[in-house]
């Protein structure tokens, strides 16, 4: 059952075409990721889903409700966490939660149980009376998430929730999202960090207002047309220059102490030995690695996949 259906949605701001006909469908209880750089149109789409923006054309339905007709009904079942920290910095953690509970008219008798649950996974209970402005980046994000969950929404929309948060807090945040999803909530989340794609059930690669690829992270990576190798153990700059002249090579990226090279087809052991000899790279080591989402993204940008 599709919980969220986006059908051919377009939106233009002045000269900028933020969304150029985007279609996607999210299952109930799915963790769906919109992956793409800043300015790709992720925020515009998420705001449209949350009934904050009206698309120029196309339609969006959330739990069978149309975003242009059933605004109050959608808002009642949807939790939204905007990109920028949008809580009241001068209210305490508990006061922020209470405010949102009042806003969504959460019945008084249900509050203790819900708060206990939110405090449990966010681990914010010890900081209840601390002002939101004095929380660390990771804690702020968890508080914002808790506020978005106070009315137990069916669908949760998060716009770059891990932006600017340190790696440990990011990891923790994703674990919380997995817990929420396990409870049956549908989650749509956007991120500019390609390496977070693996955390999602399915992803859509977003670029310049369009979806470049969609599917499970493994399927999206599987569609990558080339073989990627990690080369190390020798003068990398020289190796890079040498390989740039080889016809099989589709792309080279220098990563500190290694070179990531994609080939149109898997080089044979003879080819490797031939290169090591001809280029004079005696210590050359190579291993095949799985392409990263970033590799896939680049291939799509260059139009190298169908």
């Amino acid at each position, binding site marked *: 059952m599709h919980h969220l259906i986006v059908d051919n949605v377009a939106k233009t701001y002045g000269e900028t075409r933020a969304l150029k006909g985007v279609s996607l469908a999210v299952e109930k209880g799915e963790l769906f990721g919109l992956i*793409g*750089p*800043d*300015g*790709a149109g992720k925020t515009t789409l998420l705001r449209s889903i949350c009934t904050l923006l009206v698309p120029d054309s196309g339609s969006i339905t959330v739990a069978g409700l149309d975003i242009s007709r059933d605004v109050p009904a959608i808002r009642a079942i949807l939790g939204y966490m905007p990109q920028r920290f949008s809580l009241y910095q001068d209210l305490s953690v508990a006061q922020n939660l209470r405010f949102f509970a009042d806003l969504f008219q959460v019945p008084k008798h249900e509050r203790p149980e819900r708060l206990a649950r939110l405090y449990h996974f966010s681990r914010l209970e010890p900081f209840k009376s601390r002002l939101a402005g004095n929380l*660390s*980046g*990771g804690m702020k994000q968890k508080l914002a998430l808790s506020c978005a969950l106070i009315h137990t929404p069916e669908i949760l929309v998060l716009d770059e929730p891990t*932006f*600017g*948060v*340190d*790696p*440990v*807090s990011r*990891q923790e945040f994703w674990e919380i999202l997995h817990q929420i999803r396990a409870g049956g909530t549908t989650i749509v989340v956007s991120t*500019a*960090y*390609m*390496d977070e794609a693996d955390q999602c059930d399915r992803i859509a690669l977003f*670029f310049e207002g369009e979806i470049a690829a969609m599917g499970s992270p493994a399927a999206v990576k599987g569609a990558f047309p080339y073989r990627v190798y990690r080369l*190390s153990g020798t003068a990398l*700059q020289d190796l890079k220059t040498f390989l740039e002249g080889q016809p099989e090579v589709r792309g080279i*990226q*220098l*990563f*500190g*102490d*290694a070179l990531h090279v994609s080939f149109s087809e898997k080089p044979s052991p003879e080819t490797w030995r031939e290169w090591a000899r001809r280029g004079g790279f005696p210590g050359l080591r190579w291993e095949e690695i799985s392409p990263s989402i*970033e590799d896939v*993204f*680049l291939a799509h*940008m*260059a139009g190298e996949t169908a």
Partner: protein
Amino acid sequence: MNEIAVQTQNLTRRFGKFTAVDRLTITVSRGEIFGFLGANGAGKTTAIRMLCGLLLPSEGEATVAGFDVYKSSEAIKKNIGYMSQRFSLYDDLTISENIDFFGGVYGLSPALIEERKEALIEQVGLGDFRKRLTRDLPLGFKQRLALGSAMLHDPPIIFLDEPTSGVDPRARREFWSIINELAAAGKTVFVTTHFMDEAEYCHRVSIMRAGKLIALDSPGKLKESYGRNNMQDVFVALVNDEDPRPEEQL
């Protein structure tokens, strides 16, 4: 090639009773891309600020480009470039005006600014856009332009603060090819970030926790010795480790 660009010995900075940076000892060579990783509040910003001459250390020694951080902060400032993701260029200035400004702030002569401006605009590929406001530029261009502006005075050392977060992959790779070329030409590049995909591009990375250095090696070696596939996992393992390995082992 193996000259020392930055060297610190037990560099420490305290704010009141809080020790932000605790006996940091590192040596960074000329031409190296050196990553500075750490959770929020781990002390990396404080460490970088000391190296940039913005904060005085409480204890310990540090030299940047051969100059002492206590005595020669003016000389250090002439020898470093600084670029951050948070702020890079003035949005309401045109590309040309931004370059003029940075050249002026570093006291370059108008003729020299003009010459380097042309070279930079050429290099970034912004010839037709020089009179456009910077806010209208795509992020990737902005990033490269910011880097160029921060290096107008041709410093041997450059500090990058989360330089490519949010940039599209192509722009990011172009950016890092420039960084690699700079390093190959002998510039020393310091990168502070908490995005592990940026850490992958460094020659060596250092990881800080609670003001202390807890790991220092190449990304490849770190992944190997901790048995993880990516730097994100290495980082989480290291920082969550309640019992850090003794310092001799680092």
